[in-house]
């Protein structure tokens, strides 16, 4: 069964999400990758105000390709999430509730997710065209000088993803492969 999930996430929704769930995400997400994360965390460390409010928000780790005329965005698949590990703890403390990316999360992030009741959604790496079709509008909300790495707000409808780490801390990347592993190194 595929679950429809509305963003921003509510505690009620979060409580219903389990690893391995196929979901269709709709609503509003922020985007950010390495460079934007670095700037946000630098502001937090200096005690300055952020250009965006993170409370309850979901960040999609993405740097889209340029949009063809008439398209809201270019192809926009996920980037590797582990690179954001250094920056994620202070964002969770500021109320971040969801991340969308691909691949492992780092240890700092994984450790804090149950405490902050955050959820990690995996989007399929390399399915950038399909994902772009779910993005209906894109607006730069901070750091336009970063180009594709600027922080955007996307309005999305039925973006396909899979719950990879749920709020209880269970991890699909640990549990899924165990079911099919027949060779131990």
């Amino acid at each position: 069964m595929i679950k429809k999930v509305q963003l921003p996430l509510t505690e009620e929704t979060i409580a219903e999400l389990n690893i391995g769930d196929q979901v269709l995400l709709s609503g509003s997400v922020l985007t950010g990758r390495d460079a934007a994360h670095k700037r946000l965390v630098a502001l937090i460390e200096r005690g300055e105000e952020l250009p965006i409010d993170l409370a309850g928000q979901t960040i999609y780790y993405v740097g889209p390709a340029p949009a063809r005329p008439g398209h809201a965005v270019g192809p926009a698949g996920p980037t590797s999430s582990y690179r954001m590990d250094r920056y994620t703890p202070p964002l969770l403390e500021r109320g971040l509730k969801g991340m969308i990316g691909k691949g492992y999360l780092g240890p700092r992030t994984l450790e804090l997710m149950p405490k902050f009741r955050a959820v990690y959604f995996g989007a399929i790496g390399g399915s950038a065209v399909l994902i772009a079709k779910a993005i209906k509008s894109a607006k730069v909300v901070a750091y336009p000088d970063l180009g594709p790495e600027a922080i955007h707000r996307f309005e999305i409808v039925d973006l396909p993803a899979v719950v990879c780490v749920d709020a209880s801390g269970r991890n699909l990347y640990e549990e899924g492969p165990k079911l099919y592993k027949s060779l131990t190194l």
Partner: protein
Amino acid sequence: MREMQVSEITKAVAALFLQANYVIGKDVTDKLMAAKASEPSPLGGMVLEQILDNNRIGAEESLPVCQDTGMSVVFITVGQEVHLTGGGLEEAVNEGVRQAYTTGYLRKSIADDPLFDRKNTGDNTPCVIHTRLVPGDKVHIMAIAKGFGSENMSQLKMLTPSDGVEGVKRFVLKVVEEAGPNPCPPLVVGVGIGGSFELAALMAKRATSLPLTRSHRDPRYKQLEDELEKDINRLGIGPAGYGGQTTALKVHIVSAPTHIAGLPVAVNICCHVARHAETTL
């Protein structure tokens, strides 16, 4: 002597990078379809289906199938009877990359300085260019758009001769297992064995661009390719790393003579978005 304007090379390079980014090869598609039919994991099957749909639409609509349109790598083989005129070869190749990435709606992903500035060059140049001079009057160009999700999971190790076949297997499997879901499996695993430190890496890169229908011509290496593929698919990682039996679509080995004291092994990981295109001028 054959005269060739370097502008022909620019034109060819630009066309190859557009093709590579928009159209996934039939060899990859065939492997993905076969995997979808045999993959026992329901989530794995869903992932493979989504990848196939994505690639079909990318080709139909001339859209890059992945937003990471890669670092541009070109292997160019120039016949020594060709006289190139009208400019420098490397600038001509870079101009082809520039044209493809600035007019083809491809993402520009190159940082000008790796450590300090990291400013985007704005046109995906410079391209990584490997040039060989060979007999003949032809120019062969292989264009590879290499995403860094998988490039970052690649490794090289200087084994010793006593490590042998088992040592090579252990290392390749360790690299794939450590990478887990990060490089977007199912993968094409390029392995360079022998040569020197840098040649091993170069061979591994070359291996990722070989047709998936081809195997090493030495039956002993072919057997090693097949065994590695089978073993990788027993690691359980599966499509997108959600668990399953499809982790590698193919393992390609390229080998070369090496020093009596050495056994270099390089593993260049390529995601299922295996993008390359070639032509002969």
